[in-house]
């Protein structure tokens, strides 16, 4: 296992040939994604938009869980930070939507440092439970502050405008999320191959060995954690703009769990796998529409079954 790992690691350092077996299906999928709203009805476009939202969120969480091996069970909190920051600034203070994105990214960074800096030194399971608690804290804060609209949520968030064109219909947001998903995938692809990305892989495999070869593991983990947080917050901004109303109930532990399921389902650490997982997670509620109260159970059984029978996901990372 370890030798394979080392071999493929050194392979990435050599000049890479373009792998057409990945690029061609990828391009085909992209072409389908581009023309989809022209043919599909509003319902399908809506579901596809949700799928793209999950693609962004799962890719972001994949950096934390898949690359750096940190189990974050409160990922929805950063999604909430982005959505609320953007929502409050546009609805209460009349900010331009696009200006709220950097503010939300900064807010997510600060939140990530507050929660990550002290806990990332500790064992990974401590981080899991602390992030779980953090997710709850953010939700409770959103429920109990006046500025967030309390339990009933925040309404009247402005629709964003770009070059005098206002994003209104579901197709517009579909394309906005598609652009965001592509951007996120691009960012993931670049960091995966970067020095930082390789440091994450080493920290994930063997923290002590990574420290031994001069990687600052706390810095490496914090970078992964913050990058994940920033991606979630940008997704949150766009989500708030699309929904025009947000409430604490969109950012529960179940939301974090669903995003994690997407990452684990497709295959931790592998971009195409995570995209597949995210799409499946978005489709899950539609497929299980009739299941009612059984839905969480089905989701949970799926998660457990994957861990037990395909621990590396449906489309695993070959380097694992």
């Amino acid at each position, binding site marked *: 296992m370890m030798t394979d790992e080392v071999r493929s690691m050194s392979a990435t350092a050599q000049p890479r040939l373009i792998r057409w077996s990945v690029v061609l299906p990828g391009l085909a999928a992209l072409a389908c994604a581009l023309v989809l709203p022209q043919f599909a009805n509003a319902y399908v476009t809506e579901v596809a938009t949700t799928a793209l939202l999950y693609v962004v969120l799962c890719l972001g969480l994949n950096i934390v869980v898949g690359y750096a091996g940190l*189990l974050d069970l409160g990922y929805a909190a950063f999604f909430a930070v982005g959505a609320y920051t953007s929502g409050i600034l546009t609805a209460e203070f009349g900010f331009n939507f696009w200006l709220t994105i950097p503010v939300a990214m900064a807010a997510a960074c600060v939140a990530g440092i507050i929660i990550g800096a*002290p806990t990332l030194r500790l064992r990974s399971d401590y981080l899991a439970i602390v992030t779980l*608690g953090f997710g709850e804290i953010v939700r409770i804060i959103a429920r109990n502050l006046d500025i967030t609209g309390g339990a009933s949520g925040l309404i009247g968030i402005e629709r964003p405008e770009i070059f005098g064109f206002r994003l209104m219909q579901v197709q517009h947001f579909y394309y906005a999320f598609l652009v965001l998903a592509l951007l996120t995938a691009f960012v993931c692809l670049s960091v995966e191959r970067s020095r930082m990305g390789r440091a994450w892989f080493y920290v994930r495999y063997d923290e002590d060995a990574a420290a031994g070869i001069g990687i600052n593991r706390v810095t490496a983990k914090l970078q992964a954690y913050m990058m994940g947080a920033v991606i979630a917050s940008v997704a949150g901004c766009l989500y708030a703009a699309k929904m025009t109303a947000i409430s604490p109930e969109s950012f529960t532990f179940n939301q974090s769990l669903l995003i994690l399921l997407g990452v684990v389902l497709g295959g931790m650490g592998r971009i195409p796998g995570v995209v597949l997982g995210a799409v499946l997670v978005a489709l899950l509620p539609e497929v299980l529409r009739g299941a009612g109260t059984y839905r969480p*159970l089905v989701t*949970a059984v799926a998660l457990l079954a994957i861990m*037990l029978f395909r621990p590396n996901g449906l489309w695993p990372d070959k380097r694992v």
Partner: protein
Amino acid sequence: MTLDLLIQQLVNGLIVGSFYALIALGYSMVFGVIKLLNFAHGDIYMNGAFVGLIVFSFVGIWVGNGWLGVVCALLMSMLVVGLLGVVIERFAYRPMRNAPRLSILITALGASMVLNGTALALTGGRHYAFNTDLGFAGVDISTVHITYTQMVLVAASIALMAGMQAFVSRTMYGKAMRAVSIDMGASRLMGIDVDRVIALTFFMGSALAAGGGVMAGAYYGSVHFFMGFIMGLKAFTAAVIGGIGSVPGAMLGGLLLGLLEAFGSSLPFVGSEWRDVFVFGTLILFLVFKPTGLLGRSVVERV
């Protein structure tokens, strides 16, 4: 805030703290033996409360809704849910024992959600009343009112914890448990049936959680499928405060957490909505400044 109210709050805090201690103890035992954060622990507690409620509503026909009924429900629920804990360990955790840490944590999370989801599917998310005849009679010590229920529940949790401590420190199985928690491989070489010791630990930890669940159900008068989630977090917090893996630490941590919570919700601006924020804030502070807890020894990182 008057002094009387404060003292009453502190007493209530101690009582709630004794539940936390009971549940934190199970968390700590399981963690001690297989170094796994059993996310399902809170849901086992919730299942314990439901099994207790079912038993209670059946035996209530013969023995009434008084003490006898509650004790029957408590013991039955501890047995049934203890076995459930063994089953979970057998099917969800044992196959993963040599898997990467992340996979085991996610499996534990999956087990937790399966229990939670089953309870939601079966109960439809409703609150169920746990109506006992225990009432509010009790004793008044100056201005503080303590019901008999509270006194008995605290006594019962102390008895359970003392029994557990005696088991772990005095019996052969307890010795085996301690050996496995120090070095699983060496214990196996010494002829200890490690799988059986782990199963036993899960049985006892789950039985304690179930006991806590039944007591909480009888104390608060209602059970709900979501009650385990927050309790799991709090029990973990209690275990961390006391020092995870340490049996006396879990008890101390539970009591302190109960007190902190009671005290925290009577502070101005903190209020009961913010209580959980206060709890997790405490958890984070402890992890930052004293990760080994009050009574824990420093754990060598597993390489």
